[in-house]
Structure formats: C-alpha cells, structure tokens
C-alpha cells in the first residue's frame, strides 16, 4: 500500500493538481466564511463545471472546496456569531463568547489547530482502514441508527444551559417542525395546511440561516446608534503551544466521534459537531465553563465537524453510497470522470485513488497556511462598523437561502426563522436543542419504523443484534449518568432551577 501512496504522490505532484487543490481550498474557505452560502451549495454548483476538465484538476478542486468550506464556516461563527455553515453552529457558542471577551485571535487559532489535527487524523484513518471501517459501517441497520439517534438526542441536555425545561421546549418544538411535510413511508401529508411547498417539509438551511444569522442581525440592531468609535476586541496573544497541547485529548476524542459519524451514511458534520461538543462537555471537569468561551468547547466542535470530511468519503468510495448531499454530489463528479465508486474502484484505478489521498493530505497542510492567512485578515471583521456589516450579511443570507432550492418559499421560511430565533433568544429559549431535534427527528422516526417493519413489530431487534446491543448499553449508561448527575447537583438558590422535576 505504501507503494501505491508514493505512486499517488508522484501523480499528484504536478503543478496543475496542486494549484487546483489550493484554488479549491481557497474558494471553499471563502464560501464557508460567507454567511448564507453553504458548502453543499458550493459543491453542488461547482461540480458540473468540472465535468469536462481533466480528472486530475476537477476532483482535487472539489475536494479542496469541501474541506475549505467546512473549515471556513468557523470564522464568522467566532467573529460575528453567525455560523457560515450549519456545521459551525456549535463553534459559535464558545467561539463567539471568547471573541467577546477580547480573545478573537485565540479562538480562531484554536479552531484552526483542532480543525487541521482532526482532518489529518481522519484522513490517515481513511487511507489506512477505509475498507474494514466501511464493512462495519454497512452493518449499521435501522435498529443501530435508532439507538445512535437516541444517544445524540441526549446531547440536548448538555446544550440547554441552566434551564432544562426550556431546553425541552425547544427540542419538542424542533420535533414538531420536523414533522411538517410528506411522510416518506406512508405517503400521508402531515400538517402541510394545503400549502404545496410544505410538502417537502421545512427546508433546513434557510431556517438555520434565519435562526442564526438574521436573529443576530436583529439582536445587533438593538444597540441602535453607536458612536463611530470602534470597539477594540483584539486580545492579548493567540494560541500557545502549551494550550494547544492541553487540547489534544479533547481534539482526538472529538475527532474519533466525527470520524465514526462521518463513516456512517446519513449523519453529517452538522450533527457531529453537536455530539462532539456534548460529549466533551459531559466529560469535562469544568462543564460550567462551556458557553462562556471554553477552549475545549471550540476544540470539540471544530474537531468534530472537520473529522467528518475525509470519513464521509469512506462509504462513498468503498460502496458508492453517499452519506449526505455533498458526498452525493462528489459521487456524481467521480462518475462523470469515469471513476465508478464502489467495490471495484480500488481494483480498477488504485493510482488515481491514492493520488486523491495524497491531495487530501496536501490540502491538510495547505489549510494551515491558508488558515493563518485567513485569520490574520478576516479577524478584522469585528472592526467593520455594524451599519455596514450586518446589512451586507442580510443580503448574502437572502441570496444564499433562495439559492438552496430556488424557492421563494424558502425565503419565507428564513424570515420566519429569523423572527423565531430572535424571540427565542429574548426569552431565553436555547436554540441548539431545536436544531438538534430538527436534524435528528426525521431520521429517528424513519429508522424506528424501518426497524419495526424489519422485525415485524417486535422490539427484540434492538437487543438481539450485537452492534445494537452495544449501543443500547451505551445509551442506558449514558442516560443513567445524566440523571444521576442532575440528582446530585448541589442545589443552587437560583430561582430558575426551582420546580424542575429532575
């Protein structure tokens, strides 16, 4: 295999390939950094352009875009509390809090460090164990996914903040929102109120753009007229080696979560970041620091989402099965270049595949350079007067939300999301539980019903299968520990926790 890799590097080391990978990475970071533009949209739109270009230019370019976009989203998340992509939503919590304390550079550099580390580790996993990992992943059937989704739902407790009841409110609201649309298994319309556009359900991306970005614009508008004095938020120093070393365990744990989830078709970076964040918070000795600018929080979120990128290529390349929309588009691009992903890919074109692995490693290294470059210049976003920044962000959001599905109804959803998001933030309803529930509920419902259809109605399918049994145990242990911790929490005199029935 080493010879393959070396041969791959040889193929890859042409100027054209390197330049196109770098160009893709740069374009991806730019797209990710602009709120309203998503990685999915960028890849989906740019892919057809590469059909007629040579494979050694087209594929490296697209891989670069994918990787760059997932990283780029963290920049606006940290600087202006507006995630550039859905996968960076978890980064915004601690990232922006840290930025507001005046440590923008530290936050951005932590994000870069853990992103690069996670990406590197995940790529190595892809290169070394793609095939065995894929054959385990493919054994994940509906029952295993049900348990995985349930486990992910328990993360809601971690991101609800102080008030669990409000977190539950948000989560159930997310569940109800997810129900709207056509039920894929029975074909019934649910709560569409006769509106055709709702038959597809509430479009996720426009809603998230509204809830995160537009609500932020409105919150910022509250401060009204400000004097032209610029608020100086450049803090002292960035990431030191010491701090970075201390973060490595967190980053590695989150990376393994992201890699595992990426290899499973159906779960993407948007949910991996929350699970990594939630698990890290749970295992942290100082969970109360999370939400106020904890470096571990940033590290967990960013490692979680960046680890997904190489891992998502595993099921795509080994089985030809795309895990999410982006990999589906990449799959199409591969096919258009005469590379049929699937079991025979490695046999037919090993050199080319290994050259892509080499490209992934190369872009990993390039990311360090581009990342620092981006940080040096983009952190000054905070200096832009609000009156220029937020209106421009709003315009981008409108364009981005519309372009997801070319639908004017999506703009309505985005507007509704903005008002909803603003209202939630004013009354203290946490937004992350709603997002998590919205992301997971459809999958949970489908897999639950598929499981019962497979087992003809019996529940034993959840504990007779080995992987399912393992997951069930993990779930039970996790929930028990959660309940136990809540029970033994020192009773605070905070009137908010009064009345919670835990």
């Amino acid at each position, binding site marked *: 295999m080493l010879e393959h890799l070396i041969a791959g590097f040889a193929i890859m080391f042409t100027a054209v390939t390197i330049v196109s990978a770098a160009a893709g990475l740069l374009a991806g970071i730019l797209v990710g950094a602009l709120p309203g533009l998503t990685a999915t949209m960028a890849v*989906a739109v740019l*892919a*057809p*352009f590469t*059909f*007629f270009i040579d494979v050694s230019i087209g594929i490296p370019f697209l891989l670069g875009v994918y990787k760059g976009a997932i990283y780029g989203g963290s920049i606006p998340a940290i600087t202006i509390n507006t995630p550039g992509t859905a996968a960076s939503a978890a980064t915004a919590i601690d990232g922006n809090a840290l930025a507001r304390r005046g440590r923008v550079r530290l936050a951005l550099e932590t994000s870069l460090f853990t992103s690069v580390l996670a990406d590197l580790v995940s790529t190595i996993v892809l290169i070394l164990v793609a095939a065995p990992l894929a054959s385990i992943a*493919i*054994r*994940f*059937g*509906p029952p295993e996914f049900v348990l995985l989704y349930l486990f992910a739902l328990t993360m809601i407790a971690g991101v609800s903040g102080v008030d669990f009841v409000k977190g539950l409110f948000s989560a159930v609201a997310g569940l109800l929102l997810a129900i709207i*649309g*056509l039920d*894929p*298994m*029975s*074909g019934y319309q649910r709560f569409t109120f006769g509106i*055709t*556009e709702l*038959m*597809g*359900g509430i*479009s996720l991306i426009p809603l998230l753009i509204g809830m995160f970005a537009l609500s932020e614009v409105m919150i910022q508008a509250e401060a009204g007229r400000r004097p032209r004095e610029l608020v100086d938020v450049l803090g002292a120093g960035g990431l030191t080696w010491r701090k970075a070393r201390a973060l490595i365990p967190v980053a590695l744990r989150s990376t393994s979560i992201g890699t595992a989830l990426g290899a499973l*078709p*159906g779960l993407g970076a948007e949910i991996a970041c929350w699970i990594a964040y939630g698990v890290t918070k749970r295992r942290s000795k100082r969970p109360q620091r999370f939400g106020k600018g904890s470096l571990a929080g940033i590290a967990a979120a960013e490692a979680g989402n960046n680890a997904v990128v190489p891992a998502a290529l595993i*099921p795509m390349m080994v*089985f*030809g*099965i*795309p895990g999410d*929309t982006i*990999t*589906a*588009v990449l*799959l*199409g691009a591969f*096919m*258009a*270049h*005469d590379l*049929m992903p*699937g*079991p*025979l890919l490695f046999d037919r074109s090993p050199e080319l595949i290994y050259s892509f692995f080499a490209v992934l490693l190369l872009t990993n290294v390039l990311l360090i350079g581009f990342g620092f470059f981006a940080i040096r210049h983009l952190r000054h976003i905070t200096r832009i007067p609000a009156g220029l920044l937020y209106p421009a962000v709003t315009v981008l959001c409108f364009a981005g939300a519309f372009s997801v*599905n*070319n*639908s004017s109804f999506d703009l309505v959803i985005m507007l509704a999301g903005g008002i909803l998001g603003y209202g939630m933030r004013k009354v203290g309803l946490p937004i992350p539980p709603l997002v998590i529930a919205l992301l997971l509920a459809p999958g949970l419902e*489908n897999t639950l019903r*598929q499981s019962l*259809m*497979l087992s*003809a109605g019996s529940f034993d399918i959840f504990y007779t299968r080995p992987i399912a049994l393992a997951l069930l145990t993990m779930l039970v242990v996790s929930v028990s520990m959660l309940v136990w911790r809540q029970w033994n929490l020192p009773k605070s005199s905070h009137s908010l926790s009064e009345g919670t029935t835990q």
Partner: protein
Amino acid sequence: MNTSKKSEFKLRSSVISAVLGGILCAGIGASGNAIAESVEDFPSKPIRFVTPYPPGGSHSLHAGIITTVAEAHFEQPMISVIRSGGGGVVGAAGVAEADPDGYTILFGDPTINSLRPQVENLPYEVSDFVPVARINYSPAVFVVRADAPFSTMEEMVQFAKDKPGELIYSSDNVNGWTYTVFELLKVKTGTEMRGVEFGGGGPAITQLLGGNTMAYAGAPSVVADHIESGALKALCVTDTVAWETMPDVKPCPDLGYDVVFLFWRGAMVPAGTPQPIIDKLSAGFAGLVEDKGFLRLIGSINSKVAFADHETFFTLLAKEVDDMAAIAESMK
C-alpha cells in the same frame, strides 16, 4: 409674467402628454412585440431545467450533464435547478404552476408524471404536463444478496410462497419505482413479501449489502458494480429485451414473470406551452443527444441514450398513462 407662465404651463402640459402618449404607444408596441417575440425569438433568456430530486442521485447527475452541454444546442444557457422534496412532488408541482412559455422544463419520470398523479392526491394532474423529449430509460434489475437462500427468480418466488411475509426487500418510496416493480411482482405471482421504504436507491442498496434486507430492484447503473464484484446476484430485468451491458440477465417476461416497468427520464413542459416552442425544444434535445461530449459523459456514468422526440414521446406517454392506470387498479 402672466403670459410666460401660461405658455410655460402649455409647454409643460404638452410635453407631459407627449411623453405619456409615447409611453402608451411603447407599451402597446412592446406588449405586442412580447407576444410575437416569444415564439420567434425563443429562447431569448436562460432556460431552467428543474430536477425534482435531491442532488447526487442519477436524476440530478443526468441533469447536470444535459445542462453542461446544452448551450450549443439551445442558443441560450440551460441552468440546472434542483427543487427537491416530497419525493419529487414539490419540484413537479412548481413546474406545473410555472408560465407555459418554454423557459421552465421539468426533468420528469414515470412515477411523478404517470403513476402517482393517478394514485395519490397530488397538487397536479397528468394532463398538466406536455412531453417534449425523452432522453433515456432504464429497466429495473431484480437483485439479491450473494448469500441469499435463492439464486433465481423461481427460487425467490417459491421462497415467498412457502414463507409468506418473510421475504424482506428494500424499497424506495411509496409508489416509487422499486415499490411499484415489487407490487407488480407480488400481484402477478400472488405472493406476500415485506418491503421496507428507505427513501431512495442509495439507502436501499446499503441496507441490502449490509444484510438487513434480502432483495432489491434498481437501475443497472446503481447495481452493476456490485453484481460484478460478486456481492449481489441479478435475477432478471424488467424489460422485454436484455440490457446491453448485462446480456446474461434475462428479461423477466422470458422467465414467466410479466413485470415490465421502464424508468424513463425526459423533458416536460407545463400544459399550454405553444406548439412551435415545444417543437424547438424537441429539436434542441435531438441535437443534444448526438453531441459527442454528451455521449461520452453518459457512457461514463453507465447510462445510455434512448431518444424519443416530441411526437413519439407523446404517443408513448399516452399509452403509459393507460398502463399505469391498469397497474394502479391491479395494485389496489
């Protein structure tokens, strides 16, 4: 002073009326021109090619290839628009409601254009669309896992007869392509099999490969590699002739199972589009399917071209709608 004011007033009012008159004439002329223009100068702006399924599937893949090469054959760029949701219904309904001016085309297929409107309560009817050109079609290939307890159609049907309800197969959506193919099989053989809907071909194959289901029926482009690698076995193909790249897989009717269902892909426009525009579009697609670049890309995604121009497609579709009605009846 007074006279100058008066004359000023006169001058102003005459200028105003001249301008208004001019606008009026221009408006009339323009609207008249607009109608005339729309047929002769078609197309004068980019055309939207709507795919009603999520990106990454074979549908959007074909659409991407079509739109990439289209400009040379339509004099205007063709823009691929993805409008997914509701299993294809949202995109189709959107095109049905669009202006019938030839600038919005639906990339349709039999499930959303022929079958489901007759079986379900959708926001559009079969007659809301006019077929322009068919690009290609593919049959379904019945596949089972390599280690399944049956390796021929006969054995599979026998298994289902012996153990009713125990044969579990991967399905896509209610009234989708795979769903319908299996329903037809079940009706024609009088067997009971259990289908689990997974939402699409990708997840369906995943579950089959992972051992959670026993059988599936899908497009050659999706199953071919797995058959070649030995993970899946092909049983028969739902066409009247064998598929070119799989000559060993027999057509289902030849084995005694009258299940024929071809999944075509074609361009549809909203009903009411003027015939000259339809003819222009049809001619454009005829040229497109001969384009060398197009053929190369189609080949590389393991698909083929089976062009049918407007008239042929119209006849084929009319017959198919009747067939679908019969199928819907038999599935009840």
